C-alpha cells in the first residue's frame, strides 16, 4: 500500500507542476491575437486543414502585420466536439486575451461558442459551419462561409425550371442536412416539382447501398443529395455502381457533395452532376486562378470551398483592422465588417449589414473534364444571394 501513498503525493505535485507549465504567460499587448478553433483531428479534420492552410497562405502572401500591428494566430484543435470548442474559446478569451475567435468546423461548435462571443464582446468569425441560425445567436458573429439555404433554394428553383419533375432526396440526418432538405423542398415544390421519396441517412454511415436501392426503386428524374464533405465520394461511386447513372437519374444538390477536395478522385461517375454552390476551383477569374495556383504550389492539392472560406475570413479580419486603424474593440470591428464588400476567389462577396451573414453569388455548375481532371464548371450565376433562411422571416 505504501508505494501508492508515495505515488499519490507525487501525482499531486505533478498536477501542480503540469498546471503551472500549461498556464500561459500574459503576453505583450502589441500583437492582435486570433484564436483559430478548428477540427484538426477526427472525421472533420480535412475541413480544419483546408482552413488552416488557407489562413497560412494568406498570411504568407499579405504579410503578418496590418495597421501597424502584428497578427498572431493561435491554432487549437477541438475535434468538432462542442464542449471542447467552448472550453478552448473560453480559455483563449480569458487567458490569452484573443481579439478574435475564428474557425468552427461544425454548427454545434459555432453555437457553443456564441454566448462567449457575446459576453466577451469578441468578434466570432465562422469559417465553415453552414446552418442558417448561427449568426442569430450572437451580435458578434460574422460568417464568411455559406449557408445551406443559399445553395439549396437555388438548386430547387433551378431544378423546377429545368424539366426535373420528380425528385428523391437523400440527406444526412443532422442540422445542415435538414436545412438543405427543407429549403430545397420548399423552393422545388413551389416551382411545381414533386418529392417522391425522402430518405435521411445517419451521419455515421458506412454503406449507401440500401439507401441508393430505395432511390432507384422510386424512379425519380433526379436525386437530391446532401452528405457531409468527405462522404460525397463514396456516394458517387456507389451511385455509379448501382447503375443509377445509366438509368437516367441525375444527381443534383448543394455543392458540398462535389467538394473540389475530393472531386478528382471520384471517377467518371461524377460527370454531369449539377450542383449549386458558391465556389468552384474552376471559377474563371484571374484572382481565383492565382489563388488556386498558389494553394496547389504550397500544399499540393486543390483548394476546396472550406479553404476559400478561411481565406476570406482572414482577409475580412485584416480589412476590419485596417478600418479601425488597428484598434481591437469588438463593437468597432463588427461595425467595420458589416457591409464590407470585396472580391474573393469565389467572386464578389459582401457581408449583410443586418444579419452579418455572407451575401454571395451562387453558381450552377456541372461536373466536366478539363485537361483530364474533373472540375465543377459554372454555367449559370445567381447574383448576390442572401441567406434565405433569414430573409423569409
Amino acid at each position, binding site marked *: 500500500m505504501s508505494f501508492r*501513498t508515495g505515488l499519490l503525493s507525487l*501525482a499531486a505535485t505533478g498536477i501542480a507542476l503540469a498546471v503551472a507549465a500549461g498556464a500561459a504567460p500574459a503576453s505583450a499587448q502589441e500583437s492582435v491575437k486570433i484564436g483559430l478553433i478548428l477540427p484538426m483531428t477526427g472525421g472533420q479534420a480535412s475541413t480544419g486543414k483546408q482552413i488552416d492552410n488557407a489562413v497560412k497562405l494568406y498570411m504568407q502572401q499579405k504579410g503578418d502585420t496590418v495597421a501597424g500591428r502584428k497578427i498572431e494566430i493561435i491554432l487549437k484543435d477541438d475535434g468538432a466536439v462542442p464542449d471542447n470548442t467552448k472550453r478552448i474559446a473560453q480559455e483563449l478569451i480569458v487567458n490569452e486575451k484573443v481579439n478574435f475567435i475564428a474557425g468552427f468546423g461544425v454548427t454545434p461548435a459555432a453555437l457553443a461558442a456564441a454566448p462567449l462571443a457575446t459576453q466577451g464582446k469578441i468578434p466570432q468569425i465562422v469559417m465553415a459551419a453552414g446552418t442558417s441560425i448561427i449568426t442569430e445567436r450572437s451580435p458578434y458573429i460574422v460568417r464568411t462561409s455559406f449557408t445551406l439555404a443559399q445553395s439549396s433554394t437555388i438548386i430547387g428553383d433551378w431544378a423546377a425550371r429545368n424539366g426535373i419533375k420528380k425528385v428523391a432526396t437523400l440527406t444526412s440526418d*443532422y442540422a445542415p442536412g435538414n436545412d438543405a432538405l427543407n429549403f430545397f423542398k420548399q423552393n422545388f415544390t413551389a416551382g411545381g416539382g414533386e418529392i417522391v421519396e425522402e430518405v435521411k441517412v445517419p451521419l455515421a454511415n458506412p454503406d449507401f447501398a440500401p439507401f441508393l436501392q430505395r432511390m432507384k426503386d422510386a424512379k425519380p428524374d433526379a436525386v437530391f443529395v446532401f452528405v457531409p464533405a468527405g462522404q460525397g465520394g463514396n456516394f458517387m461511386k456507389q451511385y455509379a455502381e448501382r447503375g443509377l447513372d445509366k438509368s437516367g437519374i441525375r444527381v443534383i444538390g448543394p455543392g458540398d457533395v462535389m467538394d473540389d477536395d475530393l472531386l478528382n478522385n471520384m471517377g467518371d461517375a461524377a460527370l454531369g452532376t449539377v450542383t449549386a454552390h458558391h465556389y468552384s476551383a474552376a471559377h474563371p477569374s484571374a484572382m481565383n486562378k492565382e489563388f488556386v495556383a498558389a494553394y496547389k504550389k504550397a500544399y499540393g492539392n486543390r483548394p476546396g470551398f472550406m479553404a476559400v472560406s478561411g481565406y476570406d475570413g482572414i482577409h475580412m479580419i485584416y480589412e476590419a483592422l485596417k478600418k479601425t486603424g488597428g484598434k481591437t474593440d469588438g463593437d468597432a470591428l463588427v461595425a467595420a465588417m458589416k457591409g464590407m464588400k470585396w472580391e474573393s476567389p469565389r467572386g464578389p462577396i459582401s457581408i449583410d449589414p443586418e444579419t452579418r451573414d455572407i451575401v454571395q453569388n451562387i453558381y450552377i455548375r456541372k461536373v466536366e473534364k478539363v485537361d483530364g481532371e474533373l472540375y465543377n464548371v459554372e454555367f449559370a450565376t445567381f447574383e448576390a444571394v442572401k441567406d434565405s433562411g433569414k430573409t423569409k422571416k
Partner: protein
Amino acid sequence: MTAQDDVGYHARQQARWRLSEVAFWVLVLACALLFPSRYLIMTDILRLALFALSLDLILGYAGVVSLGHAAFFGIGAYSAGLLALHGIVPEPVLALFVAGLIATVVGFLTSFLVIRGVDLTRLMVTLGIALLLEALAERFSNITGGSDGLQGIEMQPILGLFAFDMFGKVGFFYCLTVLFILFLLARRIVHSPFGLSLRAIRNNPLRAAAIGIPVNRRLIAIYTLSAFYAGIAGALFTQTTALASLDVFSFEKSADLMLVLVIGGTGYLYGGLIGAVVFKMLQEIFQTITPQYWLFWIGLVLVVIVLVGRPRMHRWALWLPNLVIRRFAGRKAVVAVPERDGP
C-alpha cells in the same frame, strides 16, 4: 483474537486516512488557489475524475468491465440539461441530485443485462446500450436537439447564491465540492463490509458465492451506484458548460474513460483521479505543441506505459522521493510492489 476481530482490525487499518491522502487533497485545493487562470481545464479534469471514479467502483472493486459507461454520463447530462432548460428543477444542486437519480434508475434496469456473461460480452453489451441511447437521443431530436445538442441552457445560481461565471471559478469549486463529497462516500463504501464482499466477488465469484455472498445482488447494487456517480458527473458537465450534445454518449467518451482509469490504476479510488490529471495534461500539452498530430504522441505514451510496465514506472517515479526519505527521515524507503491489476 478471533478471526472476525482480525478481519475487522485489518479493515479498519485499511480504512484509516493516511498522511499522503490528506496531502493529495490539500495539494488539489492549493492548485485551485494557485492557478486562477486554469479553472476551466481543472474543472474538466475534476469531471473526468468523478466519471473515472464511477468506473473504478465497478471495474476496480467488482471486476465488471464496461465500454459503455458514457450511457449514464449522457443520461445525467441530458437530464440536467432538460431540467434546467424547461425550468423543472431550476436549482442546480437539486437538479444534480435528480439527474443522478434518473441515471441510477437506468443503471438499475440495465444492470440485469450486464451481470450476465464474460468480460467480452459485458464490454459489448454496455457498449451497445450506450450506442442505442445515442441513437435514441438523435432520433428524438425534438426533445434533445439531435446533433445540434441542447441549446440555450441557462443555469441558475447554485443554492441561489453563487452564479456561474465566465472564468469558471464557481463551476470549479462546485465540481470540487461534489467530487470530494462523493469521494468520501465511495471511500466509506469500499471499506465497508459491502465493499469487502465486492472484492471477494472480483477475485473469485464462485468462491464468493460459496461463502454466502449474494453475488448477483451485490453486483447489481454496485453497478447501480456506479451509474449514479456517472450520472452526477454528466450532470456536472452540463451544468458547468451549459451544453449537452450527442458526444456525451459516444464510444470515444467511454474508451477515453477506460484509458484514464487504466493509466491511473484500478482498485484504489485515486487511480481515476490521477489518471484524469495525467491524461488531460498530456492531451493539453501535446495539443499545444502540435494541434494536428497530438494523437500520435498520446498513443506513443500509452504504448510506452504498457511496454515499460507500471511497476517499473512506479519505481522510477518514486526514486527521488525515496532518496529524500532515506536521506532525511532515515527510515526505510517506500518500496514499489507490483500492482494488482483488474481482471
